[in-house]
């Protein structure tokens, strides 16, 4: 089995494992992260004016995308050398963005894949493409529609870190999520 297929299978299995968790576990984790629950959009029932916070889930608005305390404002997934596997530590981030797309069917994004500077520029365009597609595939499994996400690559052309050492290379092995209009 080639590497891409293996990675896809692993991602699929991890996504399935995630789905198997109970909703309350996920919501709990989300609350710890952000202090705000994520859930399907629903009506907000009227409550007596007690000054207490509403107990039902609220849909996430576009402001959340820029809110530093919201996971949706984090946009970068980092990869190991020679890898396009989305590591466990980035699953909550990818999941949050996938849910956002699912809840906002008119919203679109671009995922920009990058590679470190070593090697041929065109081969690095293809490596970056693999990374952006790995993130897109994970989001599709989590409910986003494929036409909501255009995965592209910058290869080594737009590095965030300018050094020539492992620290810089690690920073540049990255896929970035950019919403339409940003």
């Amino acid at each position, binding site marked *: 089995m080639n590497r*891409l297929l293996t990675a896809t299978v692993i991602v699929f299995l991890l996504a399935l494992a995630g789905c198997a968790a109970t909703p309350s576990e996920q919501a709990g984790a989300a609350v710890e992260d952000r202090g705000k629950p994520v859930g399907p959009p629903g009506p907000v029932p009227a409550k007596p004016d007690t000054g207490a916070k509403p107990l039902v889930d609220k849909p996430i608005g576009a402001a959340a995308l820029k809110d530093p305390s919201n996971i949706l404002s984090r946009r970068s997934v980092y990869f190991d050398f020679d890898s396009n596997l989305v590591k466990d530590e980035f699953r909550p981030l990818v999941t949050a963005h996938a849910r956002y797309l699912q809840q906002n069917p008119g919203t679109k994004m671009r995922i920009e894949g990058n590679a470190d500077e070593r090697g041929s520029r*065109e*081969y690095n365009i293809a490596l970056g*493409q693999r990374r952006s597609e790995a993130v897109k595939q994970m989001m599709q499994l989590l409910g986003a529609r494929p036409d909501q996400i*255009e995965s592209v*690559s910058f290869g080594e*052309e737009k590095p965030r870190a300018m050094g020539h050492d492992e620290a810089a290379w690690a920073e540049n092995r990255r896929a970035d999520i950019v919403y339409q209009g940003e």
Partner: protein
Amino acid sequence: MSPRSDTPKGRRLMPTAIIRPMKMIRLQRLVCAVAFLLPLAPLSSARAALTIEIIGSGATQFPVAVVPFRAEGGLAQPVTPVIASDLARSGLFRTVDSGGLNPLPHEPQDLNYPVWRARGADAVVIGTISPLSDGRYDVRFRLMDVSKQTQLAGFAYTASAAQLRLTAHRIADVIYETLTGAKGVFSTRVAYIVKKGKRYELQVADADGYGAQTVRWSDEPILSPTWSPDGSRLAYVSLERKKPVVYVQSLTTGKYQAVANYWGSNSAPAWSPDGKILAVVLSKEGGSQIYFINSEGKGEPRRMTFTSAIDTEPNFSPDGSLMLFTSDRGGSPQIYGMPVTGGEARRVTFEGSYNVSPRFSPDGKSFTFIQRSGGRFNVAVQDLTTRQVQVLTDGVIDESPSFAPNGRMILYATEVRGRGVLSAVSSDGRVKQRLTEEAGDVREPAWGPYPK
């Protein structure tokens, strides 16, 4: 780009020692690239933007003296310094001192051969420049063999003032071909990318670095420039739309159009020898796969590779029948070949775990590529029949190798003390040149074809 000089017409000069009427034979009807005369798109025409220094020379260097031509002194563009510089830069010639004689020889009968023999010259270049009534110039030269005291070559050209530099390159080409047997590339051009701060410029310059013109500029990266086989267009990749898109630009009109802007990434353009097709890498169906498209962007892409691996960097053979490309379908990036009609790909590189960026030699018998070994990326050449590999460079990060149209030199990008520079190496590894741009980092070179 601003008009490149119409190629000057040359006619052979018969050796004067032959007793018969001197016939002006119109030897080459050089095709007039009329399009080059049209006033064009951008930009600045610079002095030598690229400075070229010789780092290594050939195993043997032919000693040749280039004597200033008669009446050359008053011209804005002297011809003999360009000829001498071209020959020296090739690494195959050593220029012999041509001064200190009064009067200077300009015609064969002026030559005092023992003097030149004593100076160590094997050949002498002499010539004249005469203004014509229409404002143009008659430029004629003869290449004389010092020991046999005979003419080896001689041509006469009619050239405008703007064409004098190109005429000098043509003369250097004739000298080079006469003495080495291979066609000269002094009249060719090179394309490359310069990064100055945040700005990217696609530039085209003469092979000696002069006359650099910016044909496209952007605040987003430009990469992978490649010449159409007739030298009239460049294809390249630009990220200005926040994704890689393939463009084709006319060098005569300056107009450009996106020829591949499909869903996802579009990159790695390569021209078929007839200029009608571009091989490109598209991710529209997922991954990075090779497709053929019409070079004007018409019609639908035809998919050529069908793997879930990375297939990229396509390159056509000179006869148009084969395509080399980079693929990691076997687990690591290696070079494969397949017929352009489609079908099975065969792996061709077997040394090491990283072989990329294949480019055919002009005679189709070998290809240059980048091989990673011990953490370094170097330029190598592999013979397609014997599979023998020769590594030609010893930099740390060498990339983007491109053959000169005579197959004798390979131009590539490298880094010296943190700066992006171009380098050229002869196919036997001996002659080395370094090309630097004072204002920025240079990368992604592409050697253009012979001018028409």
